Structure formats: structure tokens, C-alpha cells
């Protein structure tokens, strides 16, 4: 079937009217006690527009696969023209201009760029005593992050990365991408290691300290942060990563309050002194529960990198349950000067559940991630993890836990195709709830485009008509679909849908209300202790 080619008109409008007059009149039939009762059962309208017909990238008459290969997917062995076709470039180089990493192309190709970049940067520094941040030439944006002895650069020709965030007046997305790549290097090397390497020799080759996995991880991150696509065509959680980075919230899981509190108290009960942070995660992707000291915080980005690095390590290993990992890692936003030691044990919930003498077929991996300040106490930490697993095996509710983790589906009202809800109420960990993710390239790219524009657009404040609910901000952008956001002091809600705007908003508010009424299942998963 041919995609329906509609020319979309982009109308950025501040929405000021049409909000349902009385918030209280919104009727939800959602039961507060059982998630499976959620009454939205409609099938979301399929939106047929292809990303190539939208105003995202340059027009080209090739098929989707050809298009992606030509403009989007990274290539290392390219000629000059192929290199220039790519819509996005990332470089990491040393202050003296030595290439360390490039998303596309080999050394010979990029050496010209790196020379040029270092020249521009140093002339700015010498003459104006300032760091250059963005070079804007209309259709192309060059962003620079100078972190002596490293320089990170991106060059973008992508429509949705061209506009400034109208709230922060900044090229937030481009900036964040470079910060992320830099933080990855800090994660695996730490700041002192990087600095020391260049202390004796300005032209030290940092690549000596990086592995193939690191370059793969950098490619993967660059692709996910730009397009929401994975570097290796496994798009399972790539869009989720993009979105959680955009709204700065870690994806949460949906678990009943009773089970969550049980697991929380298990972690807390068995905690040994050197454990700073402890997490139970589902497939290294969503946090089930977390313990943290009252006086210390771990940032979203640190958790993200930590789990991502472990996940990439575990990839392609059979029976990961037989291994205990002990990984030195730097949490750059926690302390970029040192390493913590991370213990990781994975177990399969399906293998400890026996129903009528049979095991569950689909595995459900749970990971115990314990962050220790002491590299010598692996065996003590291992013992702690074993006790936690023993206790989980004894849990009466483990069957329910399995069901909840494996049925992560969020039903949507018929008007809404996708949403992300970012919680602002719980301060210990910034989390978000994302509805089921698109997996095909076309939808992913479109959603990345929609959400980027929506996130960067300015919203207007609406006076609440009811006293108790406070002021809300609302904005929307119309394409052949409608994207809209509703923001108040407790949450940010971004969604893509189709239909009448007023219906969309009313349905959006229903979803918000449903999430709020299940607040404890989604967000109450951090416990603090005295360290």
C-alpha cells in the first residue's frame, strides 16, 4: 500500500480556549484499584503519513530503506559525497585536534573538519576569551562543547533540531546530546584519567583506552539521541531512550503498591553499610524500586548510563544469571573524579515460578544493581544480593509481580496515539510514564519530530476555572495529527493524537487523572536511608 501523502501545514498556535469548562465534569470510569479495568479500549487511529513527506529531512525519491541508508544510518567507510549526505555528524577530538570519535567517516575524511574546528575554537578563546557554543548558518547548525582536553562537536541539518527551545532560549537538544556523549566517556574513564592521559603528551591518542564496545555505544547513543533509532537496528527501546532524555525522566514500571513496598523494605533490610544506591530493575530498563541515602542523589543521566552500559555488556550472553558482575564505573554527575563499584546480578522470575508443575515460558529478567563505594567488598555485596533473591523467591506475591512486569501495556483512549507523562511531584527521582512505543523507523522518526517540536514550543498559561487545580499551561501544534501538552506544577503531559482538539484535551486529562489515581503504582519507588 502506498502511504497517503498529505502536505501538512504546521500551525503553531497558543491555545487559549476550548478547555472543558469544568475539570470536575470529566468522567472517568477508571477503577482505582485494578489497572486491568482501565476503560479505554478503542484502537488508536493509524496515521499513514510517511516521514519522507513531512518537512523533516531533505526530499529524496528513494525508498525508506535507501533513504535511511543514505542520510541517516552511520557509515565509517564513506567517500566525501556519502559523508556529506549524512544529516548529522558527531565528532569527539582532543584539544590539539586529534580525532577520537566520529559517527561517520574515517580519519582522513574528518581530519580537515577537526583542524578547522580547533582553529575556530582557539581563535574565539584567544580573541574573545569565550567558548564557542553554536555556529548557525541557517540550514546547518554546528554545536560545540569544549571540555578541555576534549572537544565535542555536532553538525546538524535536521529540521527539528534547528529551532531554539522557546522556554530556555537555548539549543537544548543539541547541547544535551554533546553532554551525553561526554558523560559516557566520563562514565567509563572518569575525569582524572582523561586529564592525566593528556598531561604528558598533548597528542595522546585516547582511542587506546577505548574498546570496540565503546565506539558502538557512542554510535548507538548518537543515533538514539538524534533520531530515536538504534545503532544496530534493534529499535526495542530506542525511542523510549530518546523521549526519556528529551523530557528528562526515567521510564517507570507499573507495580502494585503492596509489592513495591515489600521489595523496598527487602532492599533496605539487607543493605550493608557500603551500599550507596541500590536498584531493582526490570530488564535493566525500568526501575522497580530504588534505595538511596537521604543526603545523596543519583541523577537520571547517571542511572541511564549505568544501566545502558550493563545492558550492552549483557547483550549476547547466554544464561547471564550464572554471572555476578563487578564493574568499576564513574557516575559523572554524582562524582566525576572517582569510581564506584557496581555489583549486578540478574535472575529470571519465570524460573522461580511454578504453576501446576510448570514454569512460565517467557522469561522476565530482574536485575539487582548495588552501587558500592568500596571495591574490596564484592563478596559481602554478593551475599546481600543472594539474601534479597532468597526473599523474593519466598514472596507470596511473586506471581503477581511477574504478571505486572510482563503485561506492561497501557490502554489509550481512541483519540490518543501516544503520550509521555513526566512526574514532577516526587523529587527523589525524575520519572516518566511512556505509553507503548513505536518500533518501526517511520513512526519513530515522525514521533521524534512531533515531540521535539512540541517540547521546544512555547506554551501559554491558562487560568484554572476551578480553584483547586491551579494553573495549567497548554500548547498544541497541528499537523495531520495534533500534538499537545498540558503542564501544571505536578506533571507534564505530552501527547500525539487525532481528532477534535477539545476531545483530545479532554481525553488527555482523563489519562492524567488515571495516572494520578495510580500514582503509588507508578512513582512511589524510592526509599531513603541515613547514610
Amino acid at each position, binding site marked *: 500500500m502506498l502511504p497517503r501523502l498529505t502536505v501538512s501545514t504546521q500551525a503553531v498556535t497558543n491555545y487559549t480556549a476550548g478547555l472543558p469548562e469544568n475539570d470536575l465534569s470529566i468522567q472517568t470510569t477508571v477503577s482505582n484499584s485494578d489497572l486491568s479495568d482501565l476503560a479505554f479500549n478503542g484502537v488508536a487511529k493509524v496515521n499513514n503519513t510517511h516521514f519522507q513527506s513531512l518537512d523533516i529531512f531533505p526530499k529524496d525519491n528513494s525508498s525508506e530503506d535507501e533513504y535511511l541508508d543514505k542520510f541517516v544510518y552511520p557509515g565509517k567507510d564513506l567517500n566525501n559525497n556519502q559523508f556529506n549526505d549524512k544529516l548529522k555528524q558527531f565528532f569527539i577530538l582532543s584539544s590539539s585536534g586529534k580525532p577520537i570519535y566520529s559517527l561517520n567517516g574515517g580519519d582522513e575524511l574528518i581530519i580537515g573538519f577537526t583542524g578547522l574546528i580547533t582553529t575556530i575554537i582557539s581563535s574565539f578563546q584567544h580573541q574573545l576569551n569565550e567558548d564557542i557554543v553554536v555556529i548557525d548558518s541557517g540550514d546547518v547548525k554546528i554545536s560545540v562543547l569544549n571540555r578541555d582536553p576534549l572537544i565535542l562537536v555536532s553538525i546538524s541539518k535536521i529540521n527539528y533540531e534547528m529551532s531554539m527551545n522557546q522556554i530556555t532560549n537555548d539549543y537544548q537538544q543539541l547541547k544535551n546530546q554533546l553532554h551525553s556523549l561526554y558523560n559516557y566517556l566520563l562514565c567509563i574513564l572518569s575525569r582524572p584519567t582523561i586529564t592525566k592521559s593528556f598531561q604528558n603528551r598533548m597528542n595522546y591518542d585516547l582511542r587506546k583506552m577505548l574498546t*570496540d564496545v565503546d565506539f*558502538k555505544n557512542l554510535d548507538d547513543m548518537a543515533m538514539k539521541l538524534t533520531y530515536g533509532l538504534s545503532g544496530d537496528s534493534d529499535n526495542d527501546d530506542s525511542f523510549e531512550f530518546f523521549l526519556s532524555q528529551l523530557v528528562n525522566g526515567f521510564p517507570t514500571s507499573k507495580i502494585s503498591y503492596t509489592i513495591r513496598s515489600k521489595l523496598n523494605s527487602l532492599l533496605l533490610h539487607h543493605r550493608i553499610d557500603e551500599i550507596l544506591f541500590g536498584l531493582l530493575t526490570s530488564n535493566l530498563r525500568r526501575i522497580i524500586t530504588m534505595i538511596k541515602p537521604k543526603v545523596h542523589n543519583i541523577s537520571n543521566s547517571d542511572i541511564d548510563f549505568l544501566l545502558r552500559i550493563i545492558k550492552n555488556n549483557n547483550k549476547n550472553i547466554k544464561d547471564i544469571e550464572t*554471572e555476578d558482575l563487578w564493574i568499576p564505573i564513574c557516575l559523572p554527575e554524582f562524582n566525576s573524579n572517582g569510581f564506584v563499584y557496581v555489583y549486578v546480578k540478574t535472575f529470571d522470575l519465570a524460573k522461580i515460578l511454578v504453576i501446576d508443575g510448570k514454569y512460565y515460558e517467557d522469561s522476565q529478567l530482574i536485575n539487582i544493581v548495588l552501587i558500592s563505594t568500596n571495591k574490596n567488598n564484592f563478596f559481602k555485596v554478593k551475599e546481600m544480593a543472594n539474601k534479597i533473591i532468597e526473599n523474593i523467591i519466598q514472596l507470596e506475591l511473586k506471581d503477581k509481580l511477574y504478571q505486572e512486569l510482563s503485561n506492561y501495556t497501557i490502554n489509550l483512549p481512541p483519540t490518543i496515539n501516544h503520550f509521555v507523562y513526566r512526574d514532577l511531584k516526587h523529587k527523589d527521582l525524575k520519572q516518566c510514564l511512556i505509553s507503548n512505543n513505536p518500533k518501526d523507523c517511520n513512526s519513530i522518526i515522525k514521533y521524534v519530530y512531533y515531540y521535539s517540536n512540541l517540547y521546544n514550543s512555547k506554551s501559554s498559561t491558562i487560568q484554572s476555572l476551578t480553584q483547586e487545580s491551579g494553573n495549567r499551561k497548554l500548547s498544541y501544534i497541528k499537523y495531520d495529527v495534533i500534538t499537545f501538552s498540558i503542564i501544571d506544577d505536578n506533571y507534564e503531559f505530552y501527547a500525539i493524537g487525532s481528532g477534535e482538539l477539545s476531545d483530545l484535551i479532554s481525553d488527555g486529562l482523563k489519562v492524567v487523572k488515571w495516572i494520578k489515581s495510580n500514582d503509588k503504582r507508578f512513582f512511589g519507588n524510592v526509599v531513603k536511608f541515613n547514610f
Partner: protein
Amino acid sequence: MSDNNRFAQFKLVLLGESAVGKSSIVHRFVKNTFDNMRESTIGAAFLTQTITLPESNTTIKFEIWDTAGQERYKSLAPMYYRNANAALCVYDITSRSSFNKAQDWIKELKKQAPEGIVICLVGNKLDLENEREVDQQEVIEYVQELNQENDNVILSECSAKNGEGVLDIFNKIGRALPVEEVINGANNRSRQVGSRKPGVNLSRQQNQPQSSNCC
């Protein structure tokens, strides 16, 4: 404890250049699997496996540290070999440099590791015989020379990919380990090599900053 049920536990560490197949050897030994798409290890992984030596009716449990071969983790290696009873220094028979690196590890172990550590020099990737760069005769001569100085380095070749020779390595090590001492020691409730002692002692390393050895 009857003599029919003799049990001893030992710590074993794998060392060697990146990509020589340390993890693959361990996985073949522990899980009897081979992961073709395997990425390099970060930090270290801890696994256990037991073997039985029929002639002495002994069960030996290996506690294995599979360490990352990458240069940036090198400063952590002492943490794993300091308490080890045995070490596998692994090289790739198709890579000259990896054999040199394995020799460096043997030198380091002789200086730093506990006395009496059983060292096994393992050449992996025997399935790539036609790409061999490290001559077996040369390795034999190297080991003979080492053993003249009253050392006891075991020599082995294997293919983690097809499994050839892997179990043999661990049997050889099992036979070279001081099993009797440990069993007798355990009976005397004294602390001997291989008796269970939680934690890796690292007192000498404690205050050293994370450094990158790049020379």
C-alpha cells in the same frame, strides 16, 4: 566427613589481552555455550563451576574471576589475582602480541601473586590452526625455561569455540592444586589456601588512584 566425599574450593583468575577469548573459555567451562557475538567484558564477572577428579575422589569448586583484558582495567587486576590459587594466562594462537602479553602477565604474577599460585598458559582459538602465529614449539621451550627455575607453569591449548581442550585445562589445574592441604586444613579448621574467606584483600591497592597504565 568421609573420604568418599572430599571437597575443596579454589579461586581462579583469567588474565590476558583483550579479545583472546577469556570469557569464551569460562563460558564453555561453566555453561558449555559459545557466544559468537560476544562483546568485550567490562570490569569483571564472577562465576563458579565444580569438577570431579575421579582418581582421588575429590570434588573441586572453582570460583572464577573472568577479568576484562582491556588496558584501562589493568590497574584492577591485582584485586583479582592477589588471593587467587590459580591463574589462566590466555593468549590467542593467531596473535603474536597476545602471546607477548601473556608472558607479561606471568612475569607480573611471579612478582605479585601469592606464592604457590598455579599458573596455566593457555593458547586459545585452536580452531583457527591455519592462521596460527604462535608456534607451539616456541611456547614449549618458553615454559621449559620457566620451569627450570623451579616454577610449575602448565601449558595448554584449546578452542572455546568447539570446546576442544577446555575441560582438560581445569582438570590439569585441579591436579596441580594443593588439594590435600586444603582438605586437611579444613578438617583442622585452620585457615589454609582455598579455605573460604570472604572479600578480596586489597590493602596495598587501597589508596592508589585509578590510573591508566599506558606505557
